[in-house]
Every structure is written in structure tokens, then in C-alpha cells.
């Protein structure tokens, strides 16, 4: 079943209430949302396998806390897109503003344009694939999950990183504290190829990427410290 919702006629609260009505069910309806005009909180808190398409630019926190749903934005997304996502797929056809995918635990976030500063900050298991470039302080304190960047990365990539894996095809302006380049092994190339395929990117060679991750010198969950507790 396909629904159409016009945000010029009804507000975001009404939209989210209508979408939430399907939460926890097995419904997989398609929703077309028109006239988003940069509004905040479009399609947040979904918890079922809806297929939501937003036709235009959105503001803050679009598809935040998403579970299972597939949300596609035919435009740009403001700050905090897919923040704290748990599962599902969020795809931004344009660019995303700062802290896209922040603290997200799972699912896949695809940004077809660029992502600005702090992309994947404190990511906790989400996979993020950016077709363009990302801004500074991305993957800050990233705990787990994978971040794939087909373009360049800004300054202080992966500062204070834990166990997330970062793959960057272009130039990295600088690495943050305790983030180092690591060898690309076959298992990493396979993982990267799968992520690119999941994101629908088929014209980029996994061999062109470099891998970055934690030197494990900064954070204090070392076995050497076990006696301190």
C-alpha cells in the first residue's frame, strides 16, 4: 500500500504519528512525503519495515532512532541525520550536514553527496558509506561499525577512536589522536566490497582505499589495567 503525505498541509507531528501507527507491526507500506521544506524530525522513531521517500531537503535529525525502516531523502539533510539509528537503511541522495549517523548502533547510512563535520561521531555499530567527502572530526570516539568514504576526509579523522574501522579512498587531512593507518588485508577488502555493494556503489575499486583504526594506546580498557579495578 502506498501513502502520500504533504507537509505543506499537515505538520511533522501528524506525519510521525501516522508513521508510528505501524511501529511494531509487520507492515511494509510505502510512504511518499512531499514539501519537507527543511523541517526537523521528519520520519524519526520508526520501528517497522516501512519504505519512506522524502521528496526534498530536510532539517535536523531526519530518520533519527530508525529501526528496520528504509528512509530515502531526495535532497540534502540537516544536522544529525540518522542519529542513533538502530537498524534499517537511510539514504540521502544529496549531502548531509554535521554529525550524520552520530551514536548510531546499527543499520546502514548512505550519503550520496558529502557529509560535513563529525560524521559518525561516537558511532556504535552503524555502517556509514559516503560517496563524496567528509568534514573534520569524523568518527570521533567511534566505538564500532564501519565508515567508508569514497572521497576525502577532513582534519582529525578518528580522534580517540575505539574499535570502528575506517576506509578512505581519497586524502586524509590529518588523523586524530590514537588513530593510525592499518594494513588492508583480504578480509578488509571483502568487507569493504560488500559495504560498497550494499550502498549500490559499483564504480569504485576497493583496492583504492586505505584502512584506519585505533592504535589502542589511548583508551584505558587494557588488560594491563585489569588489576586497577
Amino acid at each position, binding site marked *: 500500500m502506498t501513502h502520500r503525505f504533504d507537509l505543506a498541509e499537515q505538520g511533522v507531528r501528524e506525519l510521525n504519528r501516522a508513521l508510528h501507527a505501524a511501529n511494531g507491526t509487520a507492515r511494509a507500506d510505502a510512504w511518499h512525503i512531499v514539501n519537507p521544506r*527543511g523541517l526537523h524530525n521528519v520520519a524519526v522513531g520508526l520501528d517497522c519495515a516501512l519504505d519512506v521517500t522524502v521528496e526534498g531537503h530536510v*532539517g535536523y535529525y531526519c530518520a533519527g532512532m530508525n529501526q528496520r525502516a528504509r528512509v530515502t531523502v531526495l535532497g540534502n539533510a540537516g544536522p544529525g541525520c540518522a542519529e542513533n539509528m538502530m537498524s534499517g537503511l537511510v539514504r540521502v541522495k544529496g549531502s548531509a550536514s*554535521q554529525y550524520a549517523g552520530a551514536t548510531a548502533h546499527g543499520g546502514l547510512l548512505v550519503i550520496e553527496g558529502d557529509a560535513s563535520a563529525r560524521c559518525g561521531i561516537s558511532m556504535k555499530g552503524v555502517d556509514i558509506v559516503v560517496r563524496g567527502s567528509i568534514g573534520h572530526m569524523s568518527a570521533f570516539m567511534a566505538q564500532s561499525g564501519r565508515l567508508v568514504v569514497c572521497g576525502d576526509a577532513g582534519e582529525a579523522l578518528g580522534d580517540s577512536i575505539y574499535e570502528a574501522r575506517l576506509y578512505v579512498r581519497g586524502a586524509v587531512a590529518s588523523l586524530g589522536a590514537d588513530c593510525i593507518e592499518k594494513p588492508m588485508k583480504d578480509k578488509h577488502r571483502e568487507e569493504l566490497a560488500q559495504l560498497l555493494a550494499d550502498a549500490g556503489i559499483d564504480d569504485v575499486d576497493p583496492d583504492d582505499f586505505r584502512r584506519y583504526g585505533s592504535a589502542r594506546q589511548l583508551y584505558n580498557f587494557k588488560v594491563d589495567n585489569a588489576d586497577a579495578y
Partner: protein
Amino acid sequence: MCGIAGLFAKTPEFEAELGHHFAAMLVEMTDRGPDSAGFAIYRDARPFGQIKITLLAPPGFSWPDFEHRLRARFAGILGLELHDTHAVIVATDWAPDLIGWVRECCPELHILSSGGAIEIYKQTGLPAKLVEHFRVTDMHGSHALGHTRMATESAVTVAHSHPFSTGEDLCLVHNGSLSNHNRLRADLARRGVHFSTDNDSEVAAGYLTWRLASGDSLEQALERAIADLDGFYTFAVGTREGFAVLRDPIACKPAVIAESDTWVAMASEYRALAHLPGAAEARTWEPAPGRIYSWKH
């Protein structure tokens, strides 16, 4: 949190609609700053040798008395246009003389702006109230720059609200907070910069005033600001010919720019631009941290 909106007309037809579109942008930024609002509009540019000065008076101020004293003292007063609490003087007299006289003889007046084209209007309360009060939707002009304030660092008064004048035909609006404003204010005061409030954004304006008076171009002054101002900011600076936008290198404070064939606009959020004609097709991007963007007529 605060909101910023700037709109720059690229065609004479759009200049005629500037106020209509700009008012909608400012009102859309209400959620980001509901306690005060203000704007600078560049319009009716005076020929060389004439100056416009915008003044703000406290309630109960007698404008007729003021005009009488003004005309008795200065020979070149061409007009005094009243807009409730605000008045715009047009004169052929030398601006520093006029400003010095107003400061000395009417210390209760705030001098909001001076220049050939700039006028500044601001008040406490919702942006919609400001728009209605000064009939912004009817205004034409080449460009306008506005601010909706949610005070964090200092009091909610009209004197603390934006834009702040930074020199002839120059003004500043700021979203963010500065951390080294006390020290910087004392340094600038020693260099002769005049401050009316304890507001951090006024210090940024004073800093630019000092640099521009020292001979820097606007771009040079903003480059230096990146080194000397500590804190979070998205600045928009209005000039006689256009405006400039700068975000601090950390870039926590948002900004979006869009450009069509007939206008250039910037705002804290895209939703303030979404109502502009052709917004969906306009080239839209987020200004990069620490980079200066500017437009001129």
C-alpha cells in the same frame, strides 16, 4: 542558539520584493531566537556626501524636541524619518560630528548605524512583531541581514540585540558565543573602540570596526578574526555592496547558503530558505569551516 538570515538581490525586480521574502526568512528563524530580533537593510543609497544615521530612542523620547535641537546645531539636515522608536537622519554634515553630538547631547539614544545605504531596526520580542512593527514586507532594498536572538551571554534588551554596527555601512550578526570577549573588550576599549553593552557579539563587531579602521579589507579583517576570536560563531557581515559569511574552524554553529539567478541567501537553517522563489532548484551548500564567502553588487 540564535538564527541568522541574509538575502541579497541580484536583479532590480527582486530588490522590489526583498522585504517580502526577507520577512518570511526572519519569521522562520523564530524557534532559534524568540527573545529579540533585528535587521539591517540597505536601500535608497544616498549620493556621495550624504549620510544616513539610524537612532533608537527609549519610550517617551521626544523626537520633535530632538529634531529642533539637531537642526539648530547642524545646517545640513535633509530629513528625519520617524519609525516609532527609531529615526533615520539624512544629512550632508560630517558623520563623526553628528555622531559625537548625539552621544554627548542625547546619551539616551542608541546610534544603530551610519552610512550611505544602511538602516538598522531592532527590538525585543518575536520576529513577527518586528516584521509587523516596521512593515518589513513592504520594504525594497538591495540586501538585508537579520538576526533572531536567544540570549545566552547577556541580558535581553534592545541594546544587546543584533545587528551591531561595525563602521559606515557595516554591521555584524552572530550566532554563537565568544569565550575571550572580556579581555578583548578591554584591549579594544584601550584602542578607542566604543562599547555600549557587555555583549560578546558587540566585541566581535568592535574587533572588526578596529581592524577596518586600521586599514584592513573586510576579508583581511575576517581572516584575522579567525586567529583572534576564541569561541563559536557563524558571522554574517553586511557591507554597502553585499555581505560576507564566516564560520569558525570548529563549525558547530550551522549555516546554509543558496544561490539562484535572482538572489543569494544565507540562513542558519535551510527551512528559512525553502520559501524563496526557485529554492528547490537553487544551488545549495553548507559553507566550509574557516572560509570567507562574500557577495557584492
